[in-house]
């Protein structure tokens, strides 16, 4: 399969890419790793007339901790993030999550910014980013703005980013003592996309769960928070009974999608199973 014809343009900086985006308007698409966009173009699901290549750009690189925040350049690849000691120490769930995306060839190309900007229904990072309550920095010709995780994923393959914006940075909290975060997924055996993935972040203080954020991916049109599940866990001591009660609420308030890999009913059942796994691991980390 070969994509429909398009014009390829390499951008060497964010400023250059923004000019190109303005020049070509809605017909242009940014490409980083390309492992979602190029397959979609081969199937003619996407037919941009101009591809602006932002892969490998120095402006979009960098991994750094500033106080209580870990900031990762949008162009950092999964492989770079998975093997970064800074990420492992500051927010291990991000390294663990990207380390099991696809396979090494995918991880050599795919980028954190690409994953969040694409909002694939079966992406892994979307749920982790939501559970962590992160934020992205978007740059446009008019300057830059921050978008909170809770506002980023609008619907299937659609985010709050405007067509003239570039997702430049991803910021997540540095996990503190008493906090834990984990991601558990049922993966498709060939593509390793999430059939169901659940990410959880919890905070424990004096033996009581004081905060919880839980997000599901793979099961519906886009990654989504699980309010009832979170509410059930907060205020409990996070023991087996509390996790069971909270996991039973996971998936209550969301739309499901069924396909040849798994039915809606199966996904609904698996959301609860994987919610329990993610919560148990996050709680164990928080207690450690």
């Amino acid at each position: 399969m070969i994509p429909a014809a398009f014009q390829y343009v390499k951008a060497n900086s964010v400023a250059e890419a923004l000019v190109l985006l303005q020049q070509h308007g809605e017909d242009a698409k940014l490409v980083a790793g390309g492992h979602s966009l190029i397959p979609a173009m081969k199937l003619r699901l996407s037919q941009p007339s101009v591809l602006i290549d932002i892969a490998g750009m120095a402006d979009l690189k960098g991994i750094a901790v500033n106080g209580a925040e870990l900031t990762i350049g949008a162009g950092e690849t999964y492989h770079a993030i998975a093997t970064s000691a800074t990420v492992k120490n500051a927010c291990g769930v991000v390294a663990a999550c990207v380390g099991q995306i696809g396979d090494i060839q995918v991880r050599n190309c795919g980028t954190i910014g690409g994953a969040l900007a694409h909002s694939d229904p079966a992406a892994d990072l979307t749920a982790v980013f939501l559970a962590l309550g992160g934020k992205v920095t978007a740059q446009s010709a008019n300057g830059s703005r921050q978008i909170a995780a809770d506002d980023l994923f609008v619907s299937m393959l659609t985010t709050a980013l405007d067509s003239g914006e570039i997702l430049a940075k991803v910021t997540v909290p540095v996990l503190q003592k008493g906090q834990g975060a984990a991601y558990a997924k049922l993966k498709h055996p060939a593509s390793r996309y999430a059939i169901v993935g659940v990410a959880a972040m919890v905070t424990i203080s004096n033996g009581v769960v004081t905060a919880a954020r839980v997000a599901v991916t793979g099961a519906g049109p886009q990654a989504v928070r699980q309010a009832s599940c979170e509410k059930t866990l907060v205020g409990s001591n996070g023991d087996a009974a509390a996790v069971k009660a909270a996991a039973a609420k996971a998936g209550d308030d969301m739309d499901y999608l069924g396909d040849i890999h798994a039915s809606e009913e199966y996904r609904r059942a698996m959301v609860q199973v994987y919610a329990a796994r993610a919560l148990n691991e996050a709680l164990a980390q928080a207690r450690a």
Partner: protein
Amino acid sequence: MARITVTVNGKSHTSDVEDRTLLVHYLREQLNLTGTHIGCDTSQCGACVVVVDGNSVKSCTTLAARCDHASVTTIEGLAQDGNLHPLQEGFWECHGLQCGFCTPGMIMSAYDLLQQNPNPSDDEVRHGLEGNLCRCTGYHNIVRAVQYAAAKMRGEEVSAPNV
């Protein structure tokens, strides 16, 4: 059209390609390097894996235009002076293939793995090859073949296992 200069298996090529040309088609159809295979064409099976600037990638999902000034190694670039690369020898000695369709990609992924980890456990070999699907050997002999090559590349005595 884009004019690209790519070093493939140590030899520099300057070529005109359509902007939409995928690396695998450039290698197979313009350079006649047909050792790189097209399997699933959806970046899952790994038959098309080649090494670009030291990283293994799926060439069915890589634009040739992006490879301007890159260095590409394909299966044809491994044997030196008529001597098989240890990985090729390992697949031969350990019966690491039946039909052979997945083999070029398997070997290029294993090549990337052994560059990063010269002494992998069997488990690490299996993880390193998770982007490559084989429909006939069932992987056991592929793992043995990679371990054979790893040992040989470390300078150890090697012999083919009883398989």
